[in-house]
């Protein structure tokens, strides 16, 4: 119960942060995809079965926070989550460092998928072709960079949180 409340609060504040923190500190186009990074981290570290429900909830929160078409971010996050799950099953690496760098690669790929598909959906829903054409390399590069920084920042706290609750549950089972 406590775990569920903490995770709910985390995705609520991250979705708000993605909408309200962009602009001041960093331009909206390069502001990190906080929810996407967390989703990739969750899937590659803890498996899609355990986290897909939370990822769908996070996508829904993000759609609401951004006042956007409901379903758009759920679609993108689910697609990225399943792609991450598929490839993390194929590329098994031993050791914490190996996993960390593999996740970084997933986040970089996820950023690209998110940008291309996000703009394609905008093109289809809003018929805004120019925004698709504006897929600037520099912007995507900077966004990837900030996504990786955000990932490095949340890696240990999220890991610690998950392990604390996971270990507690295992102990109760024994």
């Amino acid at each position, binding site marked *: 119960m406590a775990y569920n409340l903490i995770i709910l609060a985390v995705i*609520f*504040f991250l979705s*708000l*942060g*993605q*909408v*309200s*923190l*962009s*602009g*001041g*500190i960093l*331009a*909206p*186009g390069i*502001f990190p995809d906080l929810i996407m990074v967390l989703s990739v981290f969750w899937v590659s570290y803890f498996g*899609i079965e355990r986290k*897909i429900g939370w990822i*769908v909830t996070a996508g829904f*929160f993000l759609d*609401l*926070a*951004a*006042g956007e*078409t*409901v*379903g*758009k971010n*759920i*679609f993108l996050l*689910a*697609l990225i989550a*399943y792609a991450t*799950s598929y490839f993390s099953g194929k590329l098994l690496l031993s050791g914490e460092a190996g996993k960390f760098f593999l996740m970084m690669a997933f986040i970089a790929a996820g950023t690209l998928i998110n940008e291309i598909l*996000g703009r394609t959906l*905008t093109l289809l*829903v*809003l018929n*805004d072709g*120019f*925004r698709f054409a*504006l897929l600037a390399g520099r912007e995507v590069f900077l966004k990837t960079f900030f996504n990786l920084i955000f990932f490095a920042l949340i890696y240990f706290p999220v890991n610690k949180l998950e392990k604390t609750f996971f270990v507690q549950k295992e102990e109760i089972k024994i």
Partner: protein
Amino acid sequence: MTHKLSSKKTLRLIFILGCCLFLVFLNPKKVFNPFFEIFFKLSLPFQKIFYTLSQKTGNTLIFWSSLNEIREENEKLIKENRALLVETAGQKELQRENEELRKQLGLIPGKNFSLEASFVIGQNPQKLGSWILIDKGENSGITTGMPVIVSQGILIGKVEEVYADTAKVILLTDSESVINVRDLETEAKGVVRGKFGLGLVLEMVSQDDMLNAGDSIITSGLGGDLPKGLLVGKIQEPKVSLDRIFQGATVAVPVKYSNLDVVFVIKN
């Protein structure tokens, strides 16, 4: 076994994506408005804090990174200030003339508007210059279509969607935005269109009309959705359209949309 698992995964993915597409199709029917209402009600105080925090942090970062420039600019400004002191003497006469012109043009001075001050609490996370969220909504008497200005009477957009305590304002630079305008100096009429969140373009100006760089563009009041005389921007670069029937220009926006803190909704 593995094959079974992966096919189960694929089926689940297809199911989720199908549900998403279904949700997307439900959007135009406004099915999710109650969810938006609840979410905005819960998030409003936090969004205010987040947005203010972000703006202040951004401004502090800019301040520290530009200290050297500020010192140089300060020296330059001191010199300019001395020169301006001389010019101020002639200002009173210009002010009187301005008031007279305003009367003749039928412009409404800013103080005659019934304004609702509100804080910006969010903006499109994907692209700058598309829309902003403000912390006032239906409960404050705001309705769709109301113009939104900043302190000096500069138009920045129109209210597009209204919830109980929040509203979404579509900015002039959004590609969906089109408003009727005229050149304050030459009386040329046209429309200003948003340029994909990046800037503004003046279009549909007759070839017989004059457009000069530096001219002020104001709302013409045509169509009745916006009051007459709100400043939109200044002409940067006049040019003839490709079909040579109309002329147009790029319009410089006098406000930096990423730094908006407080805006005013014109209610009357």
